[in-house]
């Protein structure tokens, strides 16, 4: 599904990712943990194609092709989805219209007919219920005035509507209470399938209790310093990052948002 080889990436000339190697196979759930400033969000932005981040070395293969060749929207239509850490507000653009237009952009790409407002309402209804979103949020502007939890659940709604093949969740669990967290997990689990993969970026082990990962990686100072199974998340939760030893201590530059 996704192969990352020796990935280096910089923002405004400053190198953040310093050689990442990662292999994600169909159906797998990978979690990436690590302290602030380690490059977690940079990785997610690079995968989504944010032009502010420059790939300086290495490559990303998605379904066997060079991801760098694809524009942001092409990546999206080819099934890459990023749930944003900070979802963007768009005053004046109704959430329902936004969601329908996004779904239709994907349908058009697949050669399927576009959904009208009624068909879309039918299609979306069950997913809105699953994520326990207030239907009133559909008539409001995209994310404008939404609470933190509503924004995150709106991201999950987009994910369940767009049915991506590779979904990245960038700290989707941050700032959520336990009920909201369970709802988000329910949304993710509803999508788990043999041909769909997830990359979950998180600070906490909490979400991983509900969305159980196949692999956990620790990212520090732009490199993956340790990989393991789901039990690695528990260890990190118990012991913090210090027990990883000198290797890790060296990898912590300190400060900065990742």
């Amino acid at each position, binding site marked *: 599904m996704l192969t990352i080889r020796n990935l280096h990436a910089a923002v405004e000339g400053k190198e953040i990712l310093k050689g990442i190697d990662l292999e994600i196979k169909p159906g797998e759930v990978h979690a990436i943990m690590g302290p602030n400033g380690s490059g977690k969000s940079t990785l997610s932005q690079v995968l*989504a*194609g*944010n*032009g502010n981040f420059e790939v300086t070395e290495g490559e990303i293969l998605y379904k066997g092709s060079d991801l760098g060749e694809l*524009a*942001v*929207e092409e*990546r*999206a*239509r080819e099934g890459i*989805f*990023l749930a*944003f850490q900070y*979802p*963007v507000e*768009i*005053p*004046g*653009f109704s959430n329902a219209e*936004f969601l329908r*237009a*996004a779904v239709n*952009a*994907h349908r058009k*790409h697949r050669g399927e007919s576009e959904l009208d407002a009624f068909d879309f309402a039918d299609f979306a209804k069950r997913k809105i219920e699953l994520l326990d979103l207030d239907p009133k949020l559909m008539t409001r*502007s995209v994310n404008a005035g939404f609470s933190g939890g509503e924004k995150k659940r709106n991201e999950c709604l*987009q994910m369940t509507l*767009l049915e991506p093949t590779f979904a990245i969740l960038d700290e989707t669990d941050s700032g959520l209470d336990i009920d909201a967290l369970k709802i988000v997990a329910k949304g993710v689990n509803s999508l788990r399938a043999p041909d769909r993969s997830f990359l979950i970026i998180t600070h906490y082990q909490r979400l991983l209790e509900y969305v159980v990962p196949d692999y956990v990686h620790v990212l520090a100072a732009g490199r993956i310093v340790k990989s393991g199974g789901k039990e690695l998340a528990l260890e990190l939760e118990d012991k913090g990052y210090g027990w990883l030893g000198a290797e890790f201590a060296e990898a912590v530059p300190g400060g900065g948002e990742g």
Partner: protein
Amino acid sequence: MNTATLNAAARYADLFPGYLETLRSLGINGAALREQGLARVKVLGFSVAGREEWKYGDIRPLAEGAFMPRPGLVKPLAGLALPAEIGALRLVFVNGRFQPDLSSPLVAPPAGLTIGSLAEAGDTKTLGTVADISDAAVTALNTAFWHDGLKLELAAGARIAQPIELVFVTDGQAEGALVAPRNLIIAGPGSEATVIERYVGGPDGPVLVAPVTEVICGENAGITHLKWFDETEDVLHYGSSHVRQESGSTYRSREFLLGGGLLRREVHLALAGSGATCELTGLTLAAGGQKADVRTRVNHDAPGCTTDELYKGLFLGRSQGVFDGMIKVARDSQQTQAFQTNRNLLLSEDAVSRSIPRLEIYADDVKCSHGSTTGQLGEDQVFYLRSRGFDEATARNLLSYAFAGEVVEPVEVPALRDELIAAVRAKLDRGL
């Protein structure tokens, strides 16, 4: 004052006696007010120098073009294109003249509504009492050279549900003409109506369209005034609305500056009676080499009045825009609430917009604010939409429309609103 501008005023003065003759032969009266208009044109001229009125706007094309009043243009050319019907009571004016054949039948208007051609009905009492020409050359020019327009009177308590739509068209015959429609709206106490002014068409060469509309909102009257400017790029449009509000009245002005080569729109509003409310919104969507210039002047002359003003501008291509707004609160106008906002979006590197929001407050117990922003589309928003599968152009158009929507969506006449939405989207799609 340069030669061209001197010549312009002098030329209009030379034309005036012959013009009055023609009007007399057509049975159109009101020479006294016209004389006053001409006198003002002669004094003010069309010079930029030292005139606050033209500090930010552009009067040169008007001063330099030799436009001729043509009241003799009575019949439109065959095949005239008119906007689709929107279920309104429609009055059509072609090259400034009322066209009964193209208009809704006016034989039995709703009770309390008197409506028709200003040239036919005449007016010696109210006309010119709202529009101040002392420092306004183009309004003075209109006052001298208008030859038709709307006269609308609402009796006390008359509530007219059907919108009244004025369509002003210029056709191929109007090349080089001065077209100066004059409209008068007198809303009696407690009356209500919605009036739409639309300006469309244009000849294949320059024309000067210089309309003036005067509105009197009687006590507790409510007037909604929707204005849509969508003329061709050969049209120079310099127009204004002049409004006086009595106690407890409500006036809503919504302006949409879409078409035209050069557009200058002014709103002059006097809150003359206590507890009156006005809402002024506007959208400028300019592209190519368009110039669009908005000037608003609101005077709070009575206590307890409210102004809510929001103008938005989107500028593509090499277009240039101005927003010059002023709210003045007189010394005794306590408990005034006045809010003025101007937001502009520059959608190309070559587009320019100037924003001059102003408040002048002489009372001490008021709630007022003003603000202005000019910027570009948020790249984080563009990225967010692209990450959901929208191509970049679509993302930018959706965001531009989202920006404009705030002033388009509240349009009170649904059919007009739908048409406006389509027109705004189409123009954004064309880009440039």
